């Protein structure tokens, strides 16, 4: 091993991951130098606004566009070169994240030339979609780790959005709306559990049927019940942001993360509970055993059916909270098909996040962020066709999944019903 030639070391001896990261960064850097640095007129500068509100005195700063883009490009290439020469894959993703952040900064510098870009607003806009997406993805993690595929996230979203809007309107209390959303999500989860665990129906088909069922049902009740009673049944109060004392004063992070509605804090809570619960507790070990090898789990006395029921129902409740975020957490009023397929994207985020809660959150955030970025860029009137900008979130997801995540492995017994012999 000591005689490994240098070229082999660079081109793959230290693994495909190292090579991919290096190539990605060098290409991104060259692109930055070639397009972003050369694409701005000399003397143009880009402003970066870091204040959440004009009242908060955090200085905004301006940088010379061309020079900044050039330096960012060089930094990207250098990072790529560094990774190529390193003899280890450790922290390769950290280097990649750093390089992509620099690339993103260069991109914003180019896009915001002669204008001002507000970072804080882009970040807090990202959370609008990140919250329901990550809750949906957590629901997926809960179900699939125990071996049940949950395609019904979209349906759970819709049903929960509907019930939370109705209950919150009727009682004028957003908290009851939130609870109603979770409960109705859990009920849809129970239906999924009954059909897939007890009756061993095909999990994918049942999930799709539940989604179609939820769309038809909520659209029907919206029209027949909500529309005639708009004022009493579909005008829910929405949650106001809750500022956490002290923490909300932290520059940049504070206004984005600690001056938000209860849903952001709930998402964080579920994330921590899941991450610890799945990997640090007895329950988590059992869940993973059931998802990987139910027969073995059964042999050592774990009740497979009970674990699966519990997870699918709790997962439904988590997705239900995500559904409530659409109405009482965001825009209030329920409108038919308002979830617009985000449940399926949540499912993709879970896969992209490798069935890990933290990974799922990162994937959901990537999607939410690129979507927010897309809107910010279209408002800045950058010279990119708007159709292409709209592709950005999906493109980022495809690049990330296909190029960087590599092969992912679902729980071995995912999607397979279990029957005792």
């Amino acid at each position, binding site marked *: 091993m000591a005689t490994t030639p240098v070229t082999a070391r660079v081109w793959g001896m230290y693994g495909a991951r190292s090579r991919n990261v290096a190539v990605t960064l060098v290409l991104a850097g060259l692109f930055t130098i070639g397009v972003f640095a050369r694409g701005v007129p000399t003397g143009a500068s880009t402003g970066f606004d870091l204040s959440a509100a004009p009242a908060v005195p955090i200085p905004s700063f301006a940088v010379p566009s061309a020079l900044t883009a050039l330096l960012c490009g060089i930094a990207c290439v250098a990072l790529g070169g560094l990774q190529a020469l390193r003899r280890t894959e450790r922290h390769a993703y950290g280097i990649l994240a750093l390089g992509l952040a620099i690339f993103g900064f260069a991109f914003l510098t180019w896009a915001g030339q002669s204008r001002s870009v507000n970072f804080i*607003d882009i970040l807090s806009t990202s959370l609008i979609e990140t919250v329901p997406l990550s809750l949906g993805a957590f629901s997926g993690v809960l179900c699939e780790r125990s071996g049940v595929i949950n395609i019904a996230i979209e349906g759970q979203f819709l049903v929960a959005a509907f019930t939370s809007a109705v209950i919150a309107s009727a009682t004028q209390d957003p908290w009851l709306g939130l609870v109603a959303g979770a409960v109705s999500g859990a009920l849809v989860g129970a239906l999924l559990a009954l059909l897939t665990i007890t*009756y061993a129906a095909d999990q994918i088909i049942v999930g799709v049927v539940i989604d179609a069922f939820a769309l038809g049902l909520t659209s029907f009740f*919206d029209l027949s019940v909500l529309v005639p009673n708009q004022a009493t049944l579909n005008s829910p109060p929405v949650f106001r942001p809750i500022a956490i004392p002290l923490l909300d004063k932290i520059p940049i992070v504070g206004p984005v993360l600690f001056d938000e509605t209860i849903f952001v804090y709930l998402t964080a809570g579920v994330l921590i509970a899941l991450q610890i619960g799945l990997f640090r507790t007895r329950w988590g070990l059992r869940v993973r055993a059931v998802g990987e090898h139910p027969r073995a789990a059964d042999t050592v006395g774990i009740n497979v059916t009970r674990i699966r029921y519990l997870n699918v129902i709790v997962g439904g409740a988590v997705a239900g909270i995500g559904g409530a975020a659409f109405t009482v957490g*965001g825009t209030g009023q329920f409108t038919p*098909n308002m979830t617009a397929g985000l449940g399926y994207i949540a499912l993709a985020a879970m896969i992209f996040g490798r069935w890990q809660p933290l990974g799922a959150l990162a994937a959901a955030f990537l999607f939410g962020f690129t979507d927010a970025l897309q*809107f910010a860029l279209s408002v800045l009137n950058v010279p990119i066709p708007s159709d292409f900008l709209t592709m950005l979130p999906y493109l980022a997801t495809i690049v990330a999944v296909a190029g960087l995540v590599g092969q992912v492995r679902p729980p071995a017994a995912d999607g397979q019903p279990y029957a005792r012999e």
Partner: protein
Amino acid sequence: MKRLMRMSALLLAVGLVAAACAKPSSSSSSGSGSSASKASNFLACEVTDTGGIDDRSFNASAWKGLQDAQKATGMKIQYLQSNSQSDYVPNIQAFEQKHCGIIVTVGFLMGGVTEKQAKANPKQKFAIVDYSYKKPLPNVLSLLYKTDQDAFLGGYLAAAMSKTGKVGTFGGMNIPTVTIYMDGFAAGVRYYNQQNHAHVQVLGWDPDKKQGSFTNDFTNQAKGKSVTQSLMSQGADIIFPVAGSVGLGAAAAVQEHDRSGSGNPVYMEWVDTDGCISAPQYCNLFITSVTKGIATSVKQAAVKAANGTFKGGNYFGTLANGGVSLSPFHHFADKIPSSVKSALNRIKQGIIDGKISTDPTKYPAG
């Protein structure tokens, strides 16, 4: 296995019942009066776009038109909702088999399929909202609206009311029936700048490059909220969403912004229908609404089809015939300076007389 079968059958049955309930909701005629005797056998049908019958926008307006026609003549009315674009053809075919006297198809996106069905079935009368054909078909009446005219007034008003010197707009999709509003809006702002030596900017739509901010969605309110936050972040203080129920997300974002009390107050202009009627909870945010009279024209089309005076071709709603108009100012009636109101009246007359162009490229940008 037996239990599985029973369960599946049950679920299927429930699903079928729900589907049956969700789709055709027919309103039985209340045929009052003797003049309705002939009309009461007449069936007028609507195929909605994916926005659904209750989008508080054009689908709802078209349905309102049929309801008005029902009240006036006692005809029967029915609609089918399209949950995706692939529902268009089956929905139209279902209505053809029901022998609808007229099928109203709603929206630009249904232009192609309506043409195909109309050619295949030349005796079937159609009215299509928002789509014109290069060669008009004898059995299709295109209901078209010069919404750039009232959007021009909306743009002028927005420019006059903006404190930050920036106004924002976004569309549901980059298609002509949406961008005609945005073009008119931008033209109105540019006209304001020219007349008043001002420099009000339009964010979210560049009429010269035909590029701008689009949600590519007419149902996802979260996207409306996101894009509106982006517009406000760049300083826009009047937002004009052209995206059906996605606009409700914009209203939520504006309301949140105004409640937080940071920065300038932001207001909106609603689209298609009078916002104070279709989304009354946000009425205090709406300076005005840029409306098009879909209901009136759909009603006329249905009534004409019922009494045998239907003719294919194009109908144009304009400021002159009241087919498009700026809604009342409601909460802002006292806040809009009378000089601006009289300017709006003058411009309206100018557009009707053809003296003022609504083409944004005719005015200097910026």
